């Protein structure tokens, strides 16, 4: 084994030296190259090729190490879903517990509520925010004024740079029942206060509105980038043929960026039960609205970080991930069939 690899290394170094000596000489069709190719067996050529790219592999190593420790090692921790884990244990410890965590989850009285909240909130969000960003991008791309386009791009991007904490305090600034602007104005008009954060009917509009407000400008950038890559001659040809601006937007812009749209839709569907909103939900939750704001993501947080039921929390999270993957594969398969664009 050792001998073999030593021999291999020697061989590789030899090849490398030859390579160094021949640097700077145009190699094609020289006798030297022809001879070299004949000397190498396919196996050697394979290793030679890998050795030639060693520096590229070095470039990947920091990322791979980071990913192994902080992403792949925790992945091993999903086994905790089948274990009885106590405080102070590491992800590799704990006695096997079978499927009892899952049994408990499915029998939990609130489970269907949480599941429904998650599905409802995320699908509604995607349903509204996805077209909003696309609309914004197409408007900006077709803007008759360059200045207005630049202004809109900046204006809509600004909220993206705010933190969730700040967004939630901004919501309070406007909607808080004692000092929010809307409620102050309502009071001045002699109308009833609205308890935005405590009423069930208000929760979804509030959540969706603030999410679209914060994310629209950022999401539009992807589409703007792919719109700017459209071949102008196509647009000109259509114009000469008498297509109106509206028709060009519909038949050219939208059609030609379809691959980007599908890619982004698939990326979004792949995390539809997403952890992305957990931070915001936790910030928005209070004692009153917990019943309709608790999603699977926040339930994972509550069970794990507050109640310290590590095994159970991991099981809930695994269930969530499984739903995501199912969604991802289904939509990817569907997209491949219908649009010929897919993630993998």
């Amino acid at each position: 084994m050792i001998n073999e690899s030593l021999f291999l290394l020697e061989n590789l170094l030899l090849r490398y030296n030859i390579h160094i000596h021949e640097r700077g000489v145009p190699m094609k069709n020289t006798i030297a190259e022809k001879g070299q190719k004949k000397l190498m067996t396919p196996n050697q050529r394979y290793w030679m090729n890998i050795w030639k790219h060693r520096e590229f592999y070095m470039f990947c190593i920091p990322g791979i190490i980071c990913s192994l420790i902080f992403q792949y090692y925790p992945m091993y921790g999903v086994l905790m879903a089948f274990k009885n884990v106590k405080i102070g244990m590491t992800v590799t410890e704990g006695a096997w517990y079978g499927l009892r965590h899952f049994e408990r989850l499915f029998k939990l009285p609130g489970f269907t509520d949480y599941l429904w909240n998650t599905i409802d909130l995320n699908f509604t969000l995607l349903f509204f925010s996805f077209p909003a960003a696309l609309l914004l991008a197409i408007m900006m791309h077709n803007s008759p004024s360059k200045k207005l386009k630049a202004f809109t791009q900046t204006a809509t991007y600004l909220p993206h740079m705010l933190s969730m904490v700040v967004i939630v305090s901004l919501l309070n600034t406007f909607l808080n029942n004692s000092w929010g602007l809307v409620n102050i104005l309502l009071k001045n008009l002699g109308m009833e206060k609205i308890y935005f954060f405590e009423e069930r009917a208000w929760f979804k509009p509030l959540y969706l509105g603030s999410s679209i407000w914060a994310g629209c400008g950022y999401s539009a950038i992807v589409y703007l980038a792919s719109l700017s890559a459209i071949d102008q001659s196509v647009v000109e040809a259509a114009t000469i043929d008498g297509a109106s601006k509206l028709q060009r937007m519909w038949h050219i812009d939208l059609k030609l960026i379809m691959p980007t749209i599908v890619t982004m839709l698939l990326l979004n569907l792949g995390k539809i039960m997403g952890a992305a909103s957990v931070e915001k939900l936790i910030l928005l939750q209070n004692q009153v609205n917990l019943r309709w704001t608790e999603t699977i993501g926040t339930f994972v947080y509550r069970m794990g970080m507050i109640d310290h039921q590590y095994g159970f929390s991991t099981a809930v999270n695994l269930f969530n991930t499984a739903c995501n993957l199912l969604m991802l594969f289904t939509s990817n398969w569907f997209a491949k069939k219908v649009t010929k664009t897919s993630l993998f």
Partner: protein
Amino acid sequence: MSTKLKKSKIGKTRGDKITDVVICAIMVFMSVVAIYPLWYTIIASLSNPNLVNNGEVVLWPKDITFIGYEAMFENKSLWRGYLNTFEYTVVGTLLNLAVTVPAGYALSRKSLPYRGLILAFFMVPMYFSGGMIASFLVISELGLYDTFWVMVIPHGITTFNMIVCRNYFTSNIPDSLFESATLDGASVTQFFFKFVIPLSKPIIAVLTLYFAIPQWNNYMNGLLYINDPKKQTLQYIIRSITSSDVKQDLADPTVDPDELREAQIKAGVMKYSVIIVAALPLYILYPAVQKYLIGGMMVGAVKE
């Protein structure tokens, strides 16, 4: 350019003009909606709090005062959080760039054997993760809990950003450039530092912003991994200032009610200025990056 000018003079039908007006109207509407909450926060932070609470400040600041900012400057924990988050963001962003850009470049070379496999390795965590608890336990196991590094290292690689970076290199660093440079005797590393880095200013600018935004804005990591108030993040401290939890503390008999009421008034005055100051650093960074935003963002084909 000249064809464009000609085109705009002729060929504008009435329908197209209406379309233009509608487009402008939608854009103006979206801009106003996007900006007004920020504008309101600015004017409310500068106005007399009593007028703000009466709903008299809507479009312009009234009776300008800086008491909100003064109260904020006196708040030591806020500034400590500010400094902490600044350190986390600078170190974290540099580390992210150092990890992401070389990997993105390497993966942009089509000749690299097992390129697809490495790419898949990076992409799997996008869809499958161990979850909050597993990450938390791993971080505790490594002894990173409640340290400076927990805010910096665990987020070293972000797959999406790496793919954006890779796609930029694929379409902007031609293979011929690499070949001619290596024929002249440059090693891959030399080529990377002498050619790739200087040519990739746009993508580095964009990635800096993309890494800095979540670092600066992160609330969950402070909540999960930091216990020591001296190491706490800005967002966590802002949350404790602006959240209505102060009300609940009133019921606590051990706290002096007068003191608490004073703290509450101060928090009320500060709640607008804190938002402005928290958002400021990224808003200063943005103009430097803005012109590169679209050029740097090429998602397109993730596979290949």
